[in-house]
């Protein structure tokens, strides 16, 4: 396939493109002159590039067949190039002639992260106005979330949602047939115009929040106290890596919450091939090796009721940038998280630099990393525990725990030692009862208002433990994380008490006989 076209050799001076005196023609139509080189050495003209780009999106959805006709799909917009190009593909797909038309019902969500990216309230307002101008032109329902709203999330966001009630999921084919049947019915009822635009218009009247009336400057942003609380949370994180992970977590949870409360069953994220490759290596370095497939795959169903899909994952960042430039796709750039002076950069940035640097010398680096990721499967991570039983899931990332309660204390001596040093005066090191192996002993010792770091550890996967170690004291975490942690710790404690009771029963058996 395309592999044959790629050479792994270093780009020598001999491989330079020909001088402008002989413009290259498009490899596809062999007529128009080429304007962009994609993959390795394939030069496309503008029209052929557009066709290739648009086709790829439809092919991606067609191949995976996970989005059902009529399904409500939430597009997560960041204002960045990939999600903006994704939005344009959905618009294109909905306006196509019947046979090739996309048949799901889209909505949009934008998470305003300006507060932690060093934007002033005025800059945030300006950004929001630009995002709103873009989304309003689409006519799709729009949901706005501020990062500060993470403090109002419910604890249930950290639990797997029930998968679509009791009835089994219909197959893709059945769903399509049902949909077509339904459309015929509507047409027969003289309701032939019950088309997507009309239904969207109906949705709009209910859904479009803010923006109907011109709000006073600053009125749309969360209260300053909330922003301060959010900034403290990020301030408390010791490394830029932890901040990046924290931002990603809060963003994901806000998007998921929007999907759940607004009745969306799929979320589309705009991760490009380049982004997926960077994420693969970053997550590997962060100790998330067991979860790579879920973190970067086409579909991520860890949340149960709402699945995340990544339809942009076969586009290189370069293709996206050229598409947006040629076809007038507007983007709204929010600055990235900034390192404090003398603070080290993040693993995320280092990996991006590393991969792009390699890519410049070896043009198939990113696609090779990407294809390696393709070979990973979610099956092993999901099936690690006994069949039928729901595996224990990480509090923060909801992946099946890759740690066993017993060995983790040995694995993390640094964490425990730090915890001992930070423990409040009243609780001497041997003040811990050592009775429980699940960390429940420390949990049960009442330290009002202050959750112990150690109490969180058994609830976290290996990677989230490392990140958690670099985050601030649990007190700074948003309430939903703390309340869900307490709930889980209590349950683990109860479970253990019951188990101890049962064990006693077993022990008595031999003595009696």
């Amino acid at each position, binding site marked *: 396939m395309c592999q044959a076209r790629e050479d792994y050799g270093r780009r020598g001076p001999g491989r330079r*493109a020909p001088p402008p005196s002989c413009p290259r023609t498009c490899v596809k139509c062999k007529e128009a002159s080429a304007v962009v*080189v994609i993959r390795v050495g394939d030069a496309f003209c503008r029209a052929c590039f557009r066709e290739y780009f648009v086709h790829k999106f439809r092919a991606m959805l067609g191949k995976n067949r996970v989005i059902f006709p009529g399904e409500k799909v939430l597009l997560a917009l960041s204002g960045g190039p990939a999600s903006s190009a994704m939005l344009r593909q959905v618009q294109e797909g909905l306006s196509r002639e019947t046979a090739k038309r996309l048949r799901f019902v889209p909505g949009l969500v934008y998470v305003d992260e300006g507060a932690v990216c060093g934007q002033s309230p005025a800059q945030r307002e300006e950004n929001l106005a630009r995002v709103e101008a873009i989304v309003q032109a689409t006519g799709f329902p729009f949901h706005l979330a501020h990062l500060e709203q993470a403090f109002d999330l419910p604890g249930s966001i950290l639990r797997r949602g029930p998968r679509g009630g009791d009835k089994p999921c219909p197959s893709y084919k059945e769903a399509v047939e049902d949909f077509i049947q339904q459309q015929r019915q509507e047409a027969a009822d003289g309701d032939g115009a019950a088309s997507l635009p009309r239904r969207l218009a109906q949705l709009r009247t209910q859904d479009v929040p803010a923006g109907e009336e011109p709000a006073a400057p600053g009125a749309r942003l969360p209260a300053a106290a909330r922003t301060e609380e959010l900034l403290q949370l990020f301030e408390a994180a010791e490394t830029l890596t932890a901040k990046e992970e924290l931002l990603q977590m809060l963003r994901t949870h806000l998007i998921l919450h929007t999907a759940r409360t607004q009745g969306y069953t799929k979320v589309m994220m705009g991760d490009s091939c*380049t982004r997926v490759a960077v994420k693969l290596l970053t997550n590997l370095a962060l100790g998330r090796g067991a979860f790579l497939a879920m973190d970067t795959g086409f579909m991520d169903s860890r949340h149960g009721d709402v699945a995340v899909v990544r339809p942009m994952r076969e586009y290189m960042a370069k293709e996206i940038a050229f598409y947006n*430039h040629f076809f007038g796709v507007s*983007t709204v750039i929010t600055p990235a998280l900034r390192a404090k002076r003398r603070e080290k950069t993040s693993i995320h940035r280092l990996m991006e630099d590393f991969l792009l640097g390699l890519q410049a010398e070896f043009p198939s680096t990113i696609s090779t990393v990407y294809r390696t990721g393709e070979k990973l499967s979610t099956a092993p991570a999901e099936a690690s525990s006994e069949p039928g039983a729901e595996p224990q899931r990480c509090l923060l990332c909801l992946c099946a725990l890759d740690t066993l309660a017993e060995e983790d204390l040995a694995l993390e001596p640094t964490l425990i030692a730090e915890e001992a040093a930070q423990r409040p005066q009243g609780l001497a090191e041997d003040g811990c009862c050592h009775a429980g192996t699940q960390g429940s002993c420390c949990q049960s010792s009442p330290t009002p208002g202050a959750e112990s770091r150690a109490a969180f550890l058994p609830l976290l996967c290996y990677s989230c433990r490392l990140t958690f170690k670099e985050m601030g004291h649990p007190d700074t975490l948003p309430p939903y994380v703390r309340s869900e942690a307490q709930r889980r710790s209590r349950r683990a404690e109860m479970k253990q008490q019951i188990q101890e009771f049962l064990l006693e029963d077993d022990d008595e058996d031999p003595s009696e006989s």
Partner: protein
Amino acid sequence: MAAPVSLQVEFGGGAELLFDGVKKHQVTLPCQPEPWDIRNLLKWIKQNLLKERPELFMQGDSVRPGILVLINDADWELMGELDYKLQDQDNVLFISTLHGG
């Protein structure tokens, strides 16, 4: 002696943040003995437009990996990259695809 060259130099995708947020720059390159190419243009940009943190835009004598270059709306890979000889009224666009800055 090559005549002065007038160009439109543009930045996008976040690269403009390194240039005071200004996307479009009207630029006139002075006369110099050899003709202007992209390599020289980058050197000129570094000295005249880029105020701080040049490492975020350049690497060696080229652009930092992840920054795309378009010459008159075409991929610079089709135009000879650093060796492209600039002509009067050319348009050179730099688009950053980098995530973090």
